């Protein structure tokens, strides 16, 4: 059986979200590197895979998938369903809750901070400090919810690691490279949970391909 192919650039947090799941699953895959600055994602060849012109894209036999969390679910359903708790209705519901919390509550707050604080200086745009400050205030309120949750269970969906935890890694990796990491570290259970994620072999492996400056500093622009 041909290995799955994952298209994109490894520094992308959306790409890294999927890479962590591939590594956790121990699945065979081939990373097909694409160039963001070269506009590979806007070429007809890529639009045929993903009409939204985005990465990552997964090819698994005849199946072509996009949207990073949908790809992650497919990989885990196929190779490591315990990370979705597919066999337990209540537990899988909790996994789904916290995957959506990442998508709708956390990522929308930390993404603009990462973009303004890390990327904009390299692309010659001004950091929108008001937006960053607003986002940090929202983040504190959101982290209170995470802290309360992680005070009662070891991981987000329960006392078991799941996609709910793994999905958080990639954007947090970049956020925690900014001066605002201390905001997260002020919440002891969130901090411990984050450190547990960082200790996972899959996370260490994927993080090696994610320089904190997205590659801009070393000239390896994605």
């Amino acid at each position: 059986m041909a290995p799955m192919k994952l298209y994109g650039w490894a520094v992308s947090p959306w790409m890294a979200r999927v890479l962590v799941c591939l590594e956790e699953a121990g699945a065979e895959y081939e990373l097909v590197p694409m160039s963001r600055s070269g506009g590979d994602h806007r070429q007809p060849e890529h639009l045929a895979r993903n009409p939204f012109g985005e990465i990552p894209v997964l090819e698994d036999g005849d199946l072509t998938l996009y949207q990073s969390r949908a790809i992650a679910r497919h990989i885990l359903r196929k190779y490591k369903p315990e990370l979705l708790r597919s066999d337990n209705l209540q537990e899988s519901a909790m996994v789904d809750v916290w995957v959506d919390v990442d998508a709708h509550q956390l990522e929308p707050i930390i993404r603009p901070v990462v973009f303004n604080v890390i990327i904009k200086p390299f692309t010659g745009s001004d950091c929108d400090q008001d937006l960053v400050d607003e986002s940090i205030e929202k983040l504190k309120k959101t982290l209170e919810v995470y802290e309360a949750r992680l005070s009662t269970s070891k991981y987000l969906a329960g006392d078991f690691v799941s996609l709910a935890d793994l999905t958080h890694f990639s954007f947090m990796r970049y956020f925690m490279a900014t001066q605002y990491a201390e905001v997260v570290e002020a919440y002891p259970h969130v901090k411990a949970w984050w450190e547990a994620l960082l200790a996972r072999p899959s996370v260490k492996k994927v993080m090696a391909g994610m320089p904190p400056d997205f590659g801009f500093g070393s000239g390896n622009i994605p």
Partner: protein
Amino acid sequence: MTPVKVFGSVAFTNVARVLVCLEEVGADYEIVDIDFHVKEHKSPEHLARNPFGQVPAFQDGDLMLFQSRAISRYVLSKYRTDEVNLLREGSPEESALVDVWLDVEALQYDPAMSSVFFQHRVVPALGGMPDEGIIGESVEKLRKVLDVYEARLTKHRYLAGDFLSLADLSHFPETYYFMEMPYAAVFDSYPRVREWLEDLFARPAIKKVVSLMAKDFSG
């Protein structure tokens, strides 16, 4: 068997999403209103159900859930039958495509629409002026998304394939409100998308939720 409980008014798109799923599977449920005017959504009782102080929250016995698409998945899985399998459980390829198009709805379609709704309806209600720049940008984003939908729905009857799924149903609530705004004309250029929407809006489950939403506004 105790009916499941949905906390929040059906006027909210995220609550309506869950109700459509409950109606599709024919489950017994009860709606418990949460009164935003008296800040009930920030009360300790409600925060115990939804720690973000939002609606919906959902209770099935001891299980308390929030995030409308997570609740929807639970409902469709719990009450699944051979005839009503809207997550396409049992078929890895089909359920993967449902996941793709549900995320497209959540992360591409819905934000563009809700941005327009917020500027056009919510901002004036709060005493402000709609930002036409934001509206224009959001309508453009929506157009690009609809270009993709038109092509997709030209090849398949529904978004994930030739079968109805949660991915299609999840589009209903935000679309329902969008169609009441002048910007609805953006859909005029997309005949297959319009047919797909007409198909959805003709479903008894959706008609039932629409009637609940209409009652809610007039009440």
